[in-house]
């Protein structure tokens, strides 16, 4: 067993693990002087940098008999995902002062890192579980209102159903091929013998569940609304993104055909339309973002039937742009002492007059999410639909784009509220400055903005490295 390889190739994971251990120790010894979030941030940054550094070496590490494969693409994805966790940690400060949040988030990140690099269903399963288990607790953690428990419970049950479904698929796959390697999936997808195709479908259904694709989406709005802002941000971006990265790993570089292909044409489309329509009438920001994320799951899954060579690039680009925009919006969302109020879109009414910077940043986020040029959300969508059309699926691409048109309205609605509506200020209302997101969150917002701007100006630079 090449231990040195394991040591090096898994440096990011080790780093996270070290962070977890340190945090536990701090907790155990009751050290209060060091603020745990800082440690988590440092650890995540280091892990991200390490991942990028490893990816720059352009080597392929096969670990544990090929159960984990670290190649440049995987490491890059890992680095990106970990980097995107930094804003989440930054914006958690105002909500969580204890160490649990950081600890749970690091555990979840550890799971995500493993899941992304798995080439075997055993670590994949464990990685995904490890990623979601702490999140059940995270949803509950900022218990500001009783609905948080409901949200956590719904998430847990549906996620459990997803796990069971995926395992059933894995089991059938295993029965058909005798192997737990994810490599079996790609051949099964082509309509291989016996249970294979059903297995592939079950596995993807599980991914649909985890990524909230219609009709497996219903948990997402409830869970996001019940969760606190950083957790909703985390779930809607990183968790979803990793599911998609896993999906890309599974289909490898095979063209999608057969029944799975049909599902991958229709369900994302339904998702796009459903999510975008349902978002129109929402009055809760998080719920709206949840429906928007359902639609975005649709776009993301359209990367899978696209031409194989560009799948992973399209997904990663999309995940990064989508996450950056989403996190940006969450980061600068004005505060309110009551969580429901903070969530209320009415709270954004006339925001530009109170806090122009926040309003502009949220507007940028919304426009990027809507996929309007020149913001990177457009390039990402272009990437996805370009691949879809290149794969010959023009009809679905057109329908998908039309579906994305439906979404423009509700993003604009947010902007309308912020810029074009006035609000009487109640007498006992706190000063504007007190409503402004705290410094750390703002820093998170600026970070995301920087990512967005870079992607706006030089998307080619980024795409070239995918």
């Amino acid at each position, binding site marked *: 067993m090449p231990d040195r390889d394991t040591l090096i190739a898994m440096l990011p994971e080790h780093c996270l693990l070290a962070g977890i251990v340190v945090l536990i120790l701090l907790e155990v010894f009751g050290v209060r002087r060091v603020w745990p979030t800082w440690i988590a941030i440092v650890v995540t940054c280091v892990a991200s940098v390490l991942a990028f550094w490893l990816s720059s070496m352009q080597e392929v590490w096969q670990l544990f008999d090929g159960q984990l494969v670290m190649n440049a693409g995987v490491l890059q994805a890992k680095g990106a995902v970990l980097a995107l966790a930094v804003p989440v940690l930054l914006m958690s400060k105002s909500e969580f002062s204890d160490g649990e949040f950081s600890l749970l988030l690091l555990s979840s990140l550890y799971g995500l890192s493993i899941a992304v690099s798995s080439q075997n269903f055993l670590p994949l399963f464990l990685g995904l579980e490890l990623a979601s288990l702490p999140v059940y607790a995270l949803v509950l953690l900022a218990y500001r209102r009783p609905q948080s428990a409901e949200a956590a419970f719904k998430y847990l049950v549906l996620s459990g159903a997803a796990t069971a479904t995926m395992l059933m698929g894995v089991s059938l796959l295993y029965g058909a091929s005798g192997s737990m390697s994810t490599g079996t999936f790609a051949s099964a997808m082509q309509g291989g013998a016996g249970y294979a195709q059903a297995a592939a479908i079950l596995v993807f259904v599980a991914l649909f569940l985890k990524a909230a694709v219609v009709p497996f989406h219903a948990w997402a709005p409830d869970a996001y609304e019940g969760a606190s802002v950083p957790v909703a941000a985390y779930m809607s971006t990183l968790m979803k993104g990793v599911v998609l990265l896993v999906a890309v790993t599974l289909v490898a570089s095979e063209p999608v055909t057969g029944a799975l292909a049909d599902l991958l044409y229709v369900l994302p489309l339904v998702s796009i339309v459903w999510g975008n329509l349902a978002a129109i009438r929402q009055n809760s920001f998080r719920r709206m973002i949840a429906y928007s994320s359902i639609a975005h799951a649709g776009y993301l899954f359209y990367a899978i039937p696209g031409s194989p060579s560009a799948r992973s690039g399209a997904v990663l680009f999309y995940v990064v742009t989508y996450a950056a925009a989403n996190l940006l919006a969450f980061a600068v969302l004005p505060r309110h002492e009551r969580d429901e109020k903070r969530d209320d879109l009415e709270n954004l009414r006339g925001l*530009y007059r109170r806090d*122009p910077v926040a309003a502009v940043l949220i507007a940028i986020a919304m*426009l990027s999410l809507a996929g*309007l*040029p*020149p913001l990177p959300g*457009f*390039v990402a969508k*272009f990437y996805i*639909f*370009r691949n879809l*059309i*290149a794969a010959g699926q*023009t009809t679905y*691409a*057109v329908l998908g*784009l*039309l579906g*994305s*048109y439906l979404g*423009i*309205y509700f993003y*604009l609605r947010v*902007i*309308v509220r912020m*810029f*074009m*509506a006035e609000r009487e200020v109640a007498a006992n209302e706190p000063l504007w400055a007190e409503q402004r997101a705290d410094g750390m969150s703002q820093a998170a917002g600026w970070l995301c903005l920087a990512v967005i701007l870079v992607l706006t100006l*030089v*998307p*080619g630079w980024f*795409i*070239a490295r995918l």
Partner: protein
Amino acid sequence: MGDAALLNLMLWLPLVGVGLLLVARGNDLRTRWLTLGVMVAQLVLTAWLYQRFDDTAVALQFSTDAPWIPQWGVQYLVGLDGFNVLLVALTALLGPLVVLGAFRSIDRDVTLFHVMLLLLQFAMMGALLAQDLFLFYVFWEAMLIPMFLIIGIWGGSRRVYATLKFFLFTAFGSILMLAAVIYLVVSLKASGGVSSFAFTDLYQSRLPLDTQSLLLGAFALSFAIKVPMFPLHTWLPDAHVEAPTAGSVILAGVLLKMGTYGFMKLGFPLFPDAARMYTPVLMTLAVVSIVYGACLALVQDDIKKIIAYSSISHLGYVMLGLLSLELIGIQGAIIQMVSHGLVAAGLFLLVGMVYERCHTRQLDEYGGLARLIPVFSVFFMIFTLASVGLPLTSGFTGEFFALLGAFRAAWPAHVAGNSGPLVLAVVAASGVVLGALYMLRFALTFLFGPTKAPHQPLADLSGRERLVLGVLAVAVFALGLFPAGVLRKTEAAARSYQALVLTPRLPGGAP
């Protein structure tokens, strides 16, 4: 510094201006002057480039070509050619005028307003200068957002409805165009192996007729909404009515021209066979737009709506000229674009000035302004007559050539047994009567008769306002009296447009 660098500087200057405004925010007056300075600097650069523009060359001039997303063949490819040179000049000219026009009327969120103006200017310039379809699309869409905010924040009472309508209308067209863009590029690569968005490469594409038709449909929808052509025009009156003066001016002055520019630069040349096949349909729509817009302008009680509907009518002539595929008609269409930009801008500025004073747009609340504010009325008369297409003004030059082109194209068809185009041309020619009808009704009620105004005494135009209108009036007359120099600049482009659209480009045909 080379001219190409100057062109880039000209393009990016507004963005620099945005940076300056953000640094220097807080003082409204300083913001206004800074913006004005930036716009004037852009105008000066444009003027320099305009006079350096070589009208004998067909090729792109002062071009910059840098990879942007090399994996897809997307380039940062900008430059001047005969297609865009006039519209670039128009845009640059309107820039400072808009700022000046809004000097007093915008007193809320001044920094944001000027940032939006600059962003809009940047996007419009970019869309005009872009020679790469992806880049074009990005700029094309980027125009929406500042305009959306300008209407939505500083607009009238129904501004949110109007601005959403504007945005959603326009975005609908763009979405389908996006699909078509992708399809076009993908199929270009599939057939020829070139992965490029450059217009010149895309002009080489060979697609079967039905594909061309579908793609043209998508492009045409987007452009026709922008123009706007009947029956896709209903956003325009609302947007114009609710928009602040600056918004209306830019909207009518430049934004609408993007639609016709798109047809000329992209829609027809990219899919020539389909374009020729659907010419009767499009031409009918153009003529219907002329008549329909004029009829509606006739019965409006809102002074801004009259001008808004008149835009629909006027841009019908542009489409008519473009579709004639006659050199004269094409040139007329180009002139008509510029002319409408100047005239509609002038009229909206005038209406805005009076609105600033009286705060109502109801036509019947006014009367006898010629007695109250004579200088205003003189300018109003000038622009009204230019709008009517009276000789010596730019409106005549454009309409005349466009109609002449349409006739020259229609007659051979008529002789060959197809009188449809001729009937359309005749109807279009009689549109000049309708044009006079609604504009003079406007002028009659507005300027003449017993004096009546909601706010008296009315102050006549200030020096700033006179300057703004004077510049426009001079341009209107210059284009009416001496169009030769301007026409020379665009002739090569008009020819290449004509050649592109007239040459069949179906697959398998002779190259």
